[in-house]
């Protein structure tokens, strides 16, 4: 009578331990029907759009997989955290955000890059500030997101103008807070991107410099977990293919882009402004991108945005090869 | 010095017409069943309640509704939890702008008289109910006012302590020549301590009975006058003494 319960306990314990072990390296077991967990951002990039209009689902279906799309993340950092914890497989960010995140999590792998005309990121100034060019930033306040696109663009601009970080007052604000501060005139200038940039421009802000004017290597990128890429290369290829399909569709007809922004809360003016820019084209994360990534990483170290150099050589994968 | 009190009625009629005169140096005890309005009467005399009708006169001066002319002890001890017992008692003098050292010294003396010397530096919640009541009594009398109004001052004391306290009060009252009222539910106590005893009864309450006590002082506490028997009996509705006016035989 004593042996039965004890055996049961042993079995239960073993099962529990096995369960723990299983969750610890779930990626080792390659179950083909596990959904690809996609973390979209609130910004309307190719991944967000493809997840929303079925393009992604169709592409994955062809590869024998399916997608599980999360609630939108407001920024890359929380999405990267979820990915590092093994709860996401694919998400989006910027080159700069990825470089910063590599400091703590070396398992991010860029698999796709969005190419634009270099006009989706830049520095704007309030209409009353009187700032015309980057040299005028001297002695003024500039809102940037710390350690990301904004700060990167500002450093590039300062470099171009021969100014140092002491010559401007850097104000660290996340994009929504920066939007409020900029609109209220609490800062003179703002380094930002996408709908934030266009939103400011539509409101009458003056464009001081665009990304292409500053020689920026920063682009919207799509990243995956290294373990996931290693285990399911076909699924990752399918995701990137979906992004390419989406880009092609937008090139033919950019109207869905405007519609998506309006649905997300943008005004007609902002949506129109965004559509006026050429929609992004998709590129694979190739050697050219590797060079950009390395340049951004070096810049970060040089500017003191990173305490120590990070190894970016393994942080990209051309999924075609 | 008189305390005169022609008529009174609370908002819910608690007191009917009560006409009361107290001579200087007199201690008038007020008895009656619980809830009959004794405390209300005392509060009116103290100036804390305004009667619907009537006035309170102190030596001819109208003090209706204006407190602080008498030393008033409420039924709950209401000692301040954030002060020591000593500082609670000393408060009586501090509010009269007496210096802290002197106030504390005199407070200590009064506490000693009431047997609480050892607990002067304790906090009220460390004391038993009876001790707190004694401390509150000390606080009341230390004010040094000539008119003293006490609402059940010995209610929480055990029998033996109560006797000692009654003895103390009788002696102190005489020594200080206080004038005032003492409310109690203990008829024996009233008869022991008072120069006159009033019995309130009825709803609204009126003075159902008024008895002069001429037994000479000092009286022995615990051995009440024979009249007690009469009071008790008449309280039950049996009129024995021709001096009582309408025997309102309200229920108790």
């Amino acid at each position, binding site marked *: 009578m004593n042996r039965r319960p004890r055996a049961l306990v042993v079995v239960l314990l073993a099962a529990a331990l096995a369960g723990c072990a299983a969750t610890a390296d779930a990626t080792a077991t390659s179950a083909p029907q596990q959904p690809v967990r996609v973390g979209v951002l609130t910004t309307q990039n190719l991944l967000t759009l493809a997840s929303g209009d079925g393009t992604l689902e169709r592409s994955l279906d062809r590869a024998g997989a399916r997608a599980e799309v999360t609630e939108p993340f407001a920024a890359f950092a929380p999405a990267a955290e979820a990915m590092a914890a093994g709860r996401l497989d694919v998400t989006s960010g910027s080159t700069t955000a990825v470089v910063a995140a590599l400091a703590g999590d070396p398992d991010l792998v860029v698999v796709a890059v969005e190419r634009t005309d270099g006009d989706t990121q830049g520095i704007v100034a309030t209409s009353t500030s009187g700032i015309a060019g980057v040299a005028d930033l001297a002695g003024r306040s500039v809102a940037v997101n710390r350690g990301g696109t904004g700060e990167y663009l500002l450093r590039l601009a300062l470099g171009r103008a021969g100014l140092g970080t002491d010559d401007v007052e850097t104000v660290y604000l996340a994009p929504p807070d920066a939007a409020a501060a900029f609109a209220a005139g609490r800062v003179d200038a703002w380094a930002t991107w996408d709908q934030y940039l266009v939103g400011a421009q539509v409101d009458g802000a003056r464009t001081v410099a665009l990304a292409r004017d500053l020689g920026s290597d920063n682009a919207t990128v799509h990243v995956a977990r290294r373990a996931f890429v290693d285990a399911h290369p076909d699924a990752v290829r399918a995701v990137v293919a979906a992004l390419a399909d989406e880009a092609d569709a937008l090139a033919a007809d950019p109207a869905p882009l405007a519609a998506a922004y309006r649905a997300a809360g943008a005004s007609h003016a902002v949506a129109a402004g965004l559509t006026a820019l050429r929609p992004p084209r998709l590129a694979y994360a190739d050697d050219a991108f590797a060079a950009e990534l390395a340049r951004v990483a070096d810049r970060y170290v040089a500017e003191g945005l990173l305490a120590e150099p990070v190894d970016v050589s393994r942080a990209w994968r051309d999924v075609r090869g | 010095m008189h305390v005169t009190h022609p008529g009174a009625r609370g908002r819910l009629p608690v007191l009917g017409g009560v006409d009361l005169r107290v001579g200087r140096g007199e201690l008038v005890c007020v008895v009656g069943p619980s809830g009959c309005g004794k405390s209300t009467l005392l509060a009116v005399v103290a100036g804390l309640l305004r009667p619907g009708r009537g006035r309170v006169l102190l030596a001819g001066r109208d003090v209706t509704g204006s407190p602080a002319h008498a030393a008033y002890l409420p039924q709950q001890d209401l000692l301040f939890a954030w002060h020591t017992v000593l500082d609670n008692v000393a408060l009586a003098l501090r509010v009269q702008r007496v210096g802290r050292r002197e106030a504390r010294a005199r407070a200590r003396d009064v506490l000693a008289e009431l047997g609480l010397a*050892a607990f002067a530096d304790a906090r009220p919640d460390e004391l038993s109910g009876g001790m707190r009541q004694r401390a509150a009594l000390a606080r009341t009398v230390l004010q040094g006012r000539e008119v003293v109004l006490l609402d059940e001052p010995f209610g929480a004391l055990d029998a033996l302590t109560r006797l000692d306290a009654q003895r103390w009060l009788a002696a102190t009252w005489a020594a200080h020549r206080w004038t005032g009222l003492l409310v109690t539910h203990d008829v024996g106590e009233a008869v022991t301590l008072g120069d006159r005893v009033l019995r309130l009864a009825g709803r609204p309450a009126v003075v159902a009975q008024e008895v002069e006590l001429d037994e000479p002082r000092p009286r022995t506490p615990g051995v009440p006058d024979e009249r007690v028997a009469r009071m008790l009996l008449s309280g039950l509705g049996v009129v024995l003494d021709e001096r009582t006016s309408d025997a309102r035989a309200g229920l108790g």
Partner: protein
Amino acid sequence: MRRPRAAVRPWLSTLALLVGWAVAGASGRVDPHVLPAPGAVLRAAGDLTVDGALPAALAASGTRVAVGAGAGVGVGLLLGLLAGLSVAAHDVVDRPLQAVRTVPFTAVTPLLVMWVGLGEPPKVLLVAVAALVPTYLATVGGVRGVDPRLRELAAAYGLGRRRTATRVLLPAALPAALVGLRLALGTAWVALVVAESVDASTGVGALLTDARTYARTDVVLLCVLVYAALGLLTDALVRGLERALLGPASAHPAPLGTPRPPALVGRPSTTSGGLHP
């Protein structure tokens, strides 16, 4: 022997959690991105202390809370007292403050930035408001909850309105106000976290934002632990204040009037003349 054990006992469950954490970290089966081991967090703490980042962050955050909560608590006490004493004041002040109570900090912060500007003022203001509301609520409740007979007693002793307020009502309301103070400091820290997440250049919040940007989960956890420790610290300070102001009984207060088994009751005497314990 009893005293040290009694002091340790409340900490046992926390200790157990810490030990569990260390064991989980050492076992190697927990992803360090999900839960960094205590060693990693300590190392991060060491690095940040050595390069001065942590002390500077603590100083910046601490100053904001000290100034903001100080102002908020002060104004809260004052308003609570006024609203408790004066019906007119209560009518003016109470509803707006009750409304503010439910507004989430995250919603208000950008508005504050727009109205007040950047830098210290919006953060300190948010902390002040976060501290003000619980203090006000507790104080006004404490003042109004004071036994009305105490007011009567004060009148009987000849205390005017002002002295009744300062010497009777305020001390009587103090226990409730101190409870409010503890709550207020807790909310103040929460408000600080939110405020520091917006305009994050100095303070523990800036450290936290950076840690997230640079995917340093160990630093994120460190910041969380720092906030927790700071909260415990301020809580202990208030409890010390309670003991100082309310006496050692404040740990287990008994309402006045409850009969206690007398450890101190004197025995009645049978001698005449005077009462002796």
